[in-house]
């Protein structure tokens, strides 16, 4: 009976959404029924290269035009890590042994990972250093580095990310992101403003503070995701 009720509900919602999206053209001209240069997207496309000196428009939007979003974004990840730690936290007396579950990873895996790990981390770092030129950036690069650490965490039982250093990197990265914001205020402009010169568009050193912010975000995301994975891998199943 419940299934029938739910399916009817879904059909109604589906119909509801369908006839709203019938009116929204796919692949038509740019959004908004006003001509494109008055919309926000039109402004971004025509001014990013000149004003912010960044080739990747999305990086300019994520870091500079909508910088507070990314700051909120990084806080969400930071709070998720803290929340996860507090939900799965075992007090000192409950902690039998915190070494990770001993997955018997095969020889192929271990040797493969030994080769892959530096390559993955290098790729991740490349992605978030070139965030302002090529697709990708702090978040994507950080995630790639985290997957690299994940491989190491799974295949080598002895491999332990040094908790102390991770906390240092995480806090320093977060503080420097907010510090860049405060620097904008201190230097008389607004919070998170791109105060330094923006250089030539497609050169590596271009876009002023934007690449620096994205590199800092990359470190923070990498360390946070590795932290989340480390906490989750440390839980011992009951069986």
């Amino acid at each position, binding site marked *: 009976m419940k299934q029938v009720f739910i399916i009817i509900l879904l059909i109604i919602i589906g119909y509801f959404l369908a006839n709203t999206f019938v009116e929204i053209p796919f692949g038509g001209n740019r959004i908004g*029924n006003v001509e494109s240069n008055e919309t926000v997207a039109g402004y971004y496309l025509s001014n990013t290269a000149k004003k912010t000196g960044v080739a990747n428009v999305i990086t300019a939007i994520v870091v500079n035009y*909508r910088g*507070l*979003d990314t700051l909120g974004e990084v806080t969400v990840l930071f709070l998720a890590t803290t929340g996860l730690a507090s939900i799965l936290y075992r007090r000192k007396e409950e902690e039998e042994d915190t070494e990770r579950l001993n997955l018997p990873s095969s020889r192929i895996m271990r040797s493969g990972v030994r080769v892959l790990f530096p390559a993955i981390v290098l790729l991740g770092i490349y992605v978030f250093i070139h965030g302002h030129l090529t697709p990708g950036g702090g978040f994507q690069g950080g995630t790639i580095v985290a997957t690299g650490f994940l491989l190491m965490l799974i295949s080598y039982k002895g491999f332990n990310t040094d908790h102390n250093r991770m906390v240092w990197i995480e806090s320093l990265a977060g503080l420097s992101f907010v510090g860049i914001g405060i620097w904008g205020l201190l230097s008389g402009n*607004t919070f998170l403003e791109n105060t330094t010169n923006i250089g030539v568009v497609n050169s590596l050193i271009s876009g002023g503070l934007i690449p620096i912010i994205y590199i800092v975000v990359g470190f923070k995301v990498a360390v946070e995701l590795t932290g989340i994975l480390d906490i989750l891998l440390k839980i011992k199943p009951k069986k």
Partner: protein
Amino acid sequence: MVISPIHYIFVPLVAAFAIPLLSKLNKELPRIIPGIVLFYNIIISFVLMQEVNEVGYISEVIAGWRAPIGINLIITPFSGFLVSLISVLGFLIWLYGFRFKKVIDDGELRSYNILQMMMITGAIGIIITGDIFNLFVFLEIVAITAVSLTSFYRGRDGAEAGFKYLLIGGFASAMILLAILILYTQVGTLNMAEIAERMHTVPTGIKSTILILFIVGFGIEAELFPLNGWAPDAYSQAPGPTSTAFAGIVVKAGVYGLIRIIFTLFDIEGAYDFLIIAGLITMIIAEAAALKQTNLKRMLAYSSIGQMGLALIAFGIGTKEAVFAAMFLLLNHAIIKSLLFMTGSILMYNSKEKTISSLHGIAKRLPFISILFAIGAFAIVGLPPFSGFWSKLYILSAAADKEMIFLIVTILAVSVIEIIYYFRVVSKLYFAEGTTNVEVYKPKINAKISMLILGIAIFVIGFYPDLVTGYLHNAADILLDKASYIQYVLNTDSTIQ
């Protein structure tokens, strides 16, 4: 460095990122830092409120880009008033919860303090941001911190309440994302002022879809009837100071988000009477449910949902008088409900199943706390000398202006229900003879101070309501006239320098 709205956000962020490091220096620091930050919030609110009184609006641009291009923070008289209220309450809650925790080692202490501070920052962020996607990001910050705090205690029900909250919260944020998406396809911008300006170009079919999706999304945070299943569990499972923060702060941000969407973004006539109907249903069902609760915190949770329903009704009436009354109710409710939750958690501290019956005759052993609880109970019900009376009176008079007899009857009936279940608790507290062997938690001086301040505030507003009403009248007028908000945000790129 001139004080501006962004200080509300980056100072707690610096503290939150620094706490893991500083706790290595000294174990006590994670307890003290939130206090400093929340006290600094009060200073910011004090300074900004002066400016808002003269200028009417404060708009601050982020990253140097003018309003529709970049994100702007905006403080209107109403949001300024709400944020100052939240800052003061946040500091009092911190003061109250300073030594409150049971045995806690440094890991949990660090997480608890970061999460509690960031929940308040998230709520403030929801209120002061002028960009709709930024509103969504701050809503997520509040959601994640609230879930982690709900499931903070090791007990069995904490995790269940947290999961229920996260599931409904996840669904709500999906609906809000969908609403932002459809809105963007019609309007082409994300800044609230520009959306309000271009709202007339949106065809009515799509406009009502967007409105419904927003109401579902924010209804969950503002605890409208069908969507507040999570609230009583979350309130009752969360630690003392957190449930106080839920009732006093997080719900206000949710209600403000809903009101802002309906008042500033949309101009659909139907929205107002929808608010009245939703508020009515929420109030009636929540108060009825509160009647048959045995757990004190769940009863207080249902009562605060009922009060929020009342606030939504007042906003729904839509006249200047009604909006003013609703704001006054939010102020009173925040103060009184925080006092009730604080005193309630202390009275309940040692009883295993937290039921009202375990309250028998505790008044003899905790006289100070019981008096404050009684004051809170009388105030929220609306008895004359206390502040609650004025807000209920103004709402009734606003309803009377619009000849909504049905509303007046239901509000009075609900007040009767409130009187019944609050006095039942107070009578158990004082007159029933209790089991003397229950050892009672003696609160420390800092908890007593914060509760005393709230008690005094109830009396002060009770005897001199015009301290606050003048300011609120002006705030109500500005909230209702949309044009000046749009004109101010879009045309002046006045940044505070």
